[in-house]
């Protein structure tokens, strides 16, 4: 009897701590964020109100739509670039590499950069791509160009490159996990049925690895969608992303209500993407 009481109390504690934390530091902040997004900016203060003016500004002022579309474009390109590099890499590790030690080392080598400061990984590309940067001076020293070129830094290419560099481990991890789950017997069965290795890949391996691809795509997309450090360092004047605009509302522009409305929009977009990807994963799930 007393044992079950202890069980009940420890159960309450186990569930209580995280639930309390979630309510205090996730739900309440999101609620406050939503509240703020309806407020009015009356210089120098913000006054409580319930109106959709901030959202209307976001919809009607073309500069916000433009930034949003640019952000969607950049994050899509980053996800595609990561996928193109990560998929063959993970495939090789799981299906072609015979030595488990080499596999572990290569896998760790992809994950390891996640442990290295994200800020520095963005910064180093600035030093490489800049007009007075390492790439320019290198190309000049080997005589390929005569004067420093500004084409490398402060554009969308630099941004896609840097963000791909930062977020590619998030693409490799889920694809690797998904591929690892596919039993080798499937490929053997497919070969016994007379399919070539390419056919086997298209009809067996690729469909079975889709949950990993979807998960990786979701992560890289959402994370680059909300990044403001890399655009700040390598993006240049027309390289502002949604998160930069958002951050400036809490800084120089000093319009918290508008910034909050933008944050709510971002939260909704991210939540929708996660839900779509969850749905996709569930519907595409094959019992192994």
């Amino acid at each position, binding site marked *: 009897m007393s*044992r079950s009481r*202890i*069980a009940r109390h*420890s*159960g309450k*504690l*186990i*569930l209580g*701590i*995280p639930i309390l*934390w979630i309510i205090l*530091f996730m*739900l309440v*902040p*999101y609620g*406050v*964020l939503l509240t703020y997004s309806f407020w009015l900016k009356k210089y120098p203060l913000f006054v409580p109100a319930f109106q959709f003016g901030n959202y209307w500004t976001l919809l009607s002022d073309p500069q916000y739509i433009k930034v949003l579309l640019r952000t969607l474009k950049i994050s899509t390109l980053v996800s595609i670039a990561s996928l193109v*590099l*990560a998929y*063959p*890499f993970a495939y090789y590790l799981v299906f*072609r590499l*015979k030595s488990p030690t080499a596999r572990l080392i*290569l896998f760790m080598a*992809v994950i*390891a*950069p996640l*442990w*290295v*400061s994200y*800020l*520095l990984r963005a*910064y*180093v*590309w600035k*030093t490489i791509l800049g007009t*007075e*940067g*390492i790439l*320019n*001076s290198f190309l000049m020293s080997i005589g390929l160009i005569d004067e420093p070129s500004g084409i490398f830094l402060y554009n969308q290419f630099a941004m896609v490159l840097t963000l791909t*560099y930062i977020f*590619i481990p998030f693409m490799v991890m889920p694809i690797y996990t998904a591929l690892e789950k596919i039993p080798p017997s499937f490929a053997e069965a497919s070969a016994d049925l007379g399919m070539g290795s390419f056919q086997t890949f298209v009809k067996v391996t690729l469909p079975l690895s889709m949950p990993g691809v979807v998960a990786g795509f*979701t*992560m890289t997309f*959402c*994370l680059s969608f*909300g990044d*403001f*450090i890399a655009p700040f360092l390598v993006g240049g004047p027309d390289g502002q992303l949604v*998160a930069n605009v*958002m*951050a400036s509302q809490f800084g120089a522009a000093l319009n*918290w209500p508008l*910034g*909050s409305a933008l*944050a709510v929009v*971002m*939260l909704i977009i*991210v939540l929708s993407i996660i839900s779509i990807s969850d749905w996709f994963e569930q519907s595409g799930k094959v019992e192994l």
Partner: protein
Amino acid sequence: MTATSTTLARKRRSPAARARLAADSGFAVIVSLVMAFLYTPILILVIYSFNDNRSLTWPLTGFTTSWYEKLFANDQLLTAIGNSFYVASCATVLTLIVGVPAALALHRFHFPGKTVFRRLLLLPIALPGIVTGISMLNMFKMFGFNLSLETVIIGHATALLAVVVTQVFARLQRLPKSLSEASSDLGANPLQTFIFVTLPNIRTALIGAGLLSFVLSFDEIPVTFFLTGRDNTLPMYIYSTMRRGVTPEINAVGTLIVLTSLVLIAVSVVFTLRDTTGRR
């Protein structure tokens, strides 16, 4: 390995073997590309921290350690490092205190709203830090809290919760059920079972998750950006230096951070390996 497959392909000259060889070289190119892509920039970061020139250009001019000497004479930087240690340690402890029970609850209990509970816990993995940062900033302002390193700690603990939960949950799922069943058959109550059976078995996962949280918190910038008061953490200090341009001093700090990260990775790998080999 490649040599033998080459000779085999020559001998047989079968189309299948040739296709396989072509595929293998294709993969080799991709793997080297990915590795070069990931590690050349880090190498460049390290090399230029020792270069005897204020501007970061090719060719290298000479070897120096003066950028490092400058670092250790920089009081602001040293304070920032101290602050980062304080924030990362507290955030790690807090996130473990909240995250481990959360993982246990997900693993053991069935309760109404469990799906929502899991969704919310895992949300920060894909949710950009800026949303966490801004929503918490709004809350602290609305309830009249002043921003400080402590608000940063709370922000970090929340953002890192998902890391701890996924890692610990994954380990719990791999534990055989029979262990805790045997423990309660022998008369242990759930608390005893947790302390004497479950905890030792998930110890390495805890260490791994703790180390990763520490590193991520130490490097964190999007949440810190909004939640810090007058005190700077190390990444915030570096960030404010970067606004003024690129300097080899940043490369020197960066190199030290890379080195520390390498040591921590090695520690976590050792723990993980010992765990997986020790079990069998």
